[in-house]
């Protein structure tokens, strides 16, 4: 069963900590995405990558960075976590030219 795996379902971090959210896909997809989901705001694109070592900013990249050293792995980094980054984070992947994204189950991050 093909899937996107996010390393943690729940995380609690302190303000100012550096936070890594990991995402791995086993479908050999070229494209990978990070979204955050907040009540009433829907899904907002943070960063995406269409190839190894390539990254592009989405709609809300401020306060985040990403890393894609291998095709199957896409990491989201919060350099200095803040309380307004408390959210559900969703990773997704897709093959080139196909928008039937496969999402992971999400990581619910709480910054205290």
């Amino acid at each position, binding site marked *: 069963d093909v899937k996107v795996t996010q390393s943690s379902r729940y995380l609690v971090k302190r303000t100012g900590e550096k936070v890594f959210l990991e995402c791995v896909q086993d479908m050999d997809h070229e494209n990978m995405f990070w979204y955050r989901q907040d009540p009433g705001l829907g*899904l907002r694109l943070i960063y995406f990558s269409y190839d190894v070592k390539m990254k592009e900013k989405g709609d809300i990249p401020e306060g985040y960075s990403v890393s894609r050293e291998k095709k199957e792995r896409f990491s989201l980094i919060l350099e200095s976590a803040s309380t307004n980054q408390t959210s559900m984070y969703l990773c*997704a992947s897709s093959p080139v030219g196909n928008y039937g994204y496969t999402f992971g189950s999400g990581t619910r991050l709480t910054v205290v």
Partner: protein
Amino acid sequence: QQQVKQSPQSLIVQKGGISIINCAYENTAFDYFPWYQQFPGKGPALLIAIRPDVSEKKEGRFTISFNKSAKQFSLHIMDSQPGDSATYFCAATVSGGGADGLTFGKGTHLIIQP
């Protein structure tokens, strides 16, 4: 700038009824319109999608209606069941334009009452 507007935010429908969720878009370059279904504790999953060369697409009890001139599209769930209770997101993108990502609506929380 919100590029895809979704309504209603929440919807309660009786079992067996028709659930209707509407979306409107602004970018006339959008040419792929999927709907995603999300259950609690899960990521969204692709439900059904349409391209603007057709006005309707049906898969089982789920139908997308598309009105290109009005820049609107909607999801109809026929014979709604309690198992359809979920959050539904419409989305849009310009296909073939690179991996720019889908633009999502804000979601509709659907409850089907038994």
